[in-house]
C-alpha cells in the first residue's frame, strides 16, 4: 500500500521503517530535515521536508490518493487539520490522527476522524505492567458515523488550480451532529 506519515518523530520514524520493511511505499514529511536522521540508512521510502497542514505541500509531495494517512506531529491540532485535509481534499480513505488530549480525541472521533491517544495508551500499558486493570477508556477511537460535523456544500474554488473532482467528498452526508 501507499502510506503517508506526517511527523518524523520517534513514532513516525519507527512506523515508516516498519512499513518500508514490510514492502509498502512510504512518504514521510516533517518541517525539519534533521528529523529524518531518525530514519535508518536502509529506508527506501521518500522523506520530504514540508508542512503537513499545507494542502499544496501534501499534493506536491504526492500524498493524493494514498491508502493510509497517519498524522503524528507533536501538535494535536496540526494532526487533526492534516487528517481533515487528507480526507476531504486528497481522497484518502484511511486516516488516523494522534490526539493526546482524550477529550479532543473523543470529539474528533464523533466528527468521523479516527484518533489514537498516547495518554491512554501509555497509562494502560503501565497499569498492565503493574498487574492492574486498565483505564477502561479506548486508546484508539475509530472515526464513526457521518462525514461532517456540519453539512455544508463544498464547491471547489473556480480559480484554484486543483484537478477536477479532487475536492469531491465521498460517503454519505448528513446534517446530524
Amino acid at each position, binding site marked *: 500500500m501507499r502510506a503517508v506519515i506526517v511527523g518524523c518523530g520517534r513514532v513516525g520514524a519507527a512506523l515508516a521503517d516498519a512499513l518500508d520493511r514490510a514492502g509498502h511505499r512510504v512518504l514521510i514529511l516533517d518541517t525539519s530535515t534533521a528529523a529524518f536522521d531518525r530514519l535508518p540508512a536502509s529506508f527506501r521510502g521518500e522523506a520530504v521536508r514540508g508542512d503537513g497542514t499545507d494542502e499544496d505541500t501534501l499534493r506536491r509531495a504526492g500524498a493524493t490518493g494514498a491508502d493510509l494517512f497517519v498524522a503524528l506531529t507533536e501538535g494535536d*491540532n496540526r494532526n*487533526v*487539520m492534516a487528517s*481533515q485535509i487528507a480526507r476531504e481534499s486528497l481522497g484518502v480513505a484511511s486516516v488516523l490522527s494522534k490526539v493526546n488530549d482524550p477529550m479532543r480525541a473523543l470529539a474528533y472521533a464523533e466528527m468521523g476522524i479516527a484518533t489514537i491517544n498516547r495518554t491512554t495508551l501509555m497509562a494502560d500499558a503501565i497499569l498492565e505492567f503493574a498487574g492492574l486493570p486498565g483505564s477502561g477508556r479506548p486508546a484508539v477511537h475509530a472515526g464513526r458515523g457521518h462525514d461532517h*460535523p456540519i453539512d*455544508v456544500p463544498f*464547491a471547489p474554488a473556480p*480559480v484554484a488550480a486543483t484537478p477536477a473532482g479532487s475536492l469531491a467528498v465521498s460517503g454519505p452526508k448528513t446534517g446530524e451532529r
Partner: protein
Amino acid sequence: MFIIVVGGGKVGYYLTRELIEAGHEVVLLEKTRARAITISDEIGSVVLARDGSEGSALAEAGANRADVVAAVTGDDEDNLVICQMAKHHFAVKRTIARVNNPKNELLFRHLGVDEIISPTRMILGSIEQDIPVHELLHLADLGGGDLELIEALLAEGSPAIGKASADLPMPEGCTLFAYIRADRAQPVRAETVFREGDKVIVIGPRDCEDALHGTLIGTEVEAGAV
C-alpha cells in the same frame, strides 16, 4: 452579545478591547499564562489563561451560551480546532476563524467554520485595488461563499458606456445595484446611463465573472487572467 475570543495576540487583544467598549460581554482565552496576566492587568478580569482548543477551557469560558466564538490565534490549525470544538461540542451559532494561509479558506468553510477572515487575502486585495487594471475586482464573498461582490471600472472601450442600465445584458443571477461617479455612490436605476470612469458594483454568483467581463469590460478574457 456574549463573545468568546481565543488568542491574546495583537488581534485578540484589540478585538477584546473594542468589543468591551461597544458594550459586549467578552471572555478572552490566552494559553500563555504570562501573556494572559499582562492583558488582564490592562483590560480587567475577562481573561482566562487556558488553551481554547481544549473542550474543558471552552466550557469554563461559557461556550454553551456564547453567541460568537472568534478564533484569532496566529496558527490556522488552532483556529480550525477551536471553531470545530465550539460548533460540535457547544453548538455555538457563529464561529469566526482567522486564516493566515489563504488556501485554507475553502477547507475551513467546508469543515463548518461560519466566517473566515484572511488578513493575507485582505492585504492582497488592497494591493490589487491600487493597480489600475481594467479588470473585475473581487470585493468580498457573500452568502457563505456562493456569491461575490464585484467592482468594475468602466474604462474606454467598455460596451456599457452610453447605455442605460436596463439595456445591459447582465448574466443570469447578477445584479448591478450601485455605481460610483465623482467619488459619490449612487443606486443604479433602470434609466441610469453609464459614463466612462464610472465604477459599478455588482453582486452575483461566483461563476459569472467571464460573462460579466464581456458586458462591462468588453475585451476578451485573456488566458490566465483572473
